[in-house]
């Protein structure tokens, strides 16, 4: 992305309204995350990567695309850090390079019949350009 790790972390902080340094790695977010076992990296580790300046590693991870925005992480954080916002900021950095992760054209017709439209709208809003 031609930006230094410092610039990227600052942008993630601006977009998310969260301070990365506030996290003291207690792990409550990852423990409560319903997807924590499938999410790599899980929330606390993701924030750690940012603290270590390993931004690219997080941006290339699958974890940021597995957040269902259920907000348990932020609700239970004793330091008031909302990881869902941080994950969203990371996704926005990628989506704004015009790279979608969910392509509306790839939806299976049977799902269109079945799945509530709110799921499609939410998915496209979070994962598509």
């Amino acid at each position, binding site marked *: 992305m031609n930006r230094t790790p410092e610039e990227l972390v600052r942008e993630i902080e601006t977009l998310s309204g969260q301070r990365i340094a506030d996290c003291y790695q207690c792990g409550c977010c990852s423990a409560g995350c319903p997807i924590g076992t499938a999410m790599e990296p899980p929330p606390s580790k993701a924030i750690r990567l940012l603290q270590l300046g390993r931004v690219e590693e997080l941006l290339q991870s699958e974890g940021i695309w597995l957040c269902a925005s259920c907000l348990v992480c932020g609700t239970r954080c004793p330091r008031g850090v909302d990881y869902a916002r941080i994950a969203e900021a990371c996704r926005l950095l990628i989506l704004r390079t015009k790279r979608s992760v969910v392509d509306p054209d790839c939806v299976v017709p049977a799902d269109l019949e079945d799945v509530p439209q*709110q799921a499609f*709208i939410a998915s496209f809003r979070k994962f598509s350009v």
Partner: protein
Amino acid sequence: MRYLYYPGCTLYSKAKNLDRCARRAAERVGITLEELPSWNCCGAIFNTGSDDIAGQVGPVRVLAKASQLGDRLVTLCAACYNVLKRAGARLNIPGNELERQRVLEFVEEKMERDVRVVHYLEVLKEDIGWEGVRRRVSKPLNGLKVACYYGCLMVRPKEVLSFDDPENPMVMDELVAELGGEPVRFDFKAECCGGYLVVNRREVAQECSMRVVENARSWGAELIVTTCPLCQYNLEMAQKSVGARRNLPVLPVLYFTQLLGLALGLPEEELGFEDNKLNPVDFLKEKGLL
């Protein structure tokens, strides 16, 4: 009492049983739901990016339209409730005046006043009152053991939603008890069902949903009630696929408005059970409720 009502995208098609039962049940308890004219989609999920103004236009337009007709807007879908409430709160953050002005310029509707977004359950509890609901019950639920599933969107983020306790919400449990049912302890009542991940990561969403269903079962529930079309879909479909593969017995999943309608004596054809993916009719007959 008349209320301005916002159905949202899914309630006109895939969740019409949620909507229809709510309207009929409302009539029974003395509420008229007046649909907001020319409403649009709320966006289904709240965008949190600090510069993401476009994502606010949909919900803010709904709030502005509503503000021209009243000061309260009733919703049923947990997602609409969440998005509209958060969009309204974001508009009023001190120091956010410039964003407010820009969003409202996009919307091209006048914001006449602040609109309080309320959930149908809040109307039942606060305005009708549990006593008022109980008086109209004609078919008590016979101690049916119900797990009340709130999911994420009704209770989080707690700073904005103020609906109920974010870890242990009770409103729906109170309602079920008034209807003659027995709300069971249910530790995953606010655990995520996997939500929209069902679109691209179905297996992940299904695992989340199965955990919720199995938790309800281990606390002795015979039935789950929800307020969100997506939760309802996920809990039902996970059982149809993963649950069936693991030979787990089925736990019916109803909208709370279906259970409410049932207890208020709505005729079976108005309860919309044919639209449930796990048809609960046989189960309800067995329980002597149909």
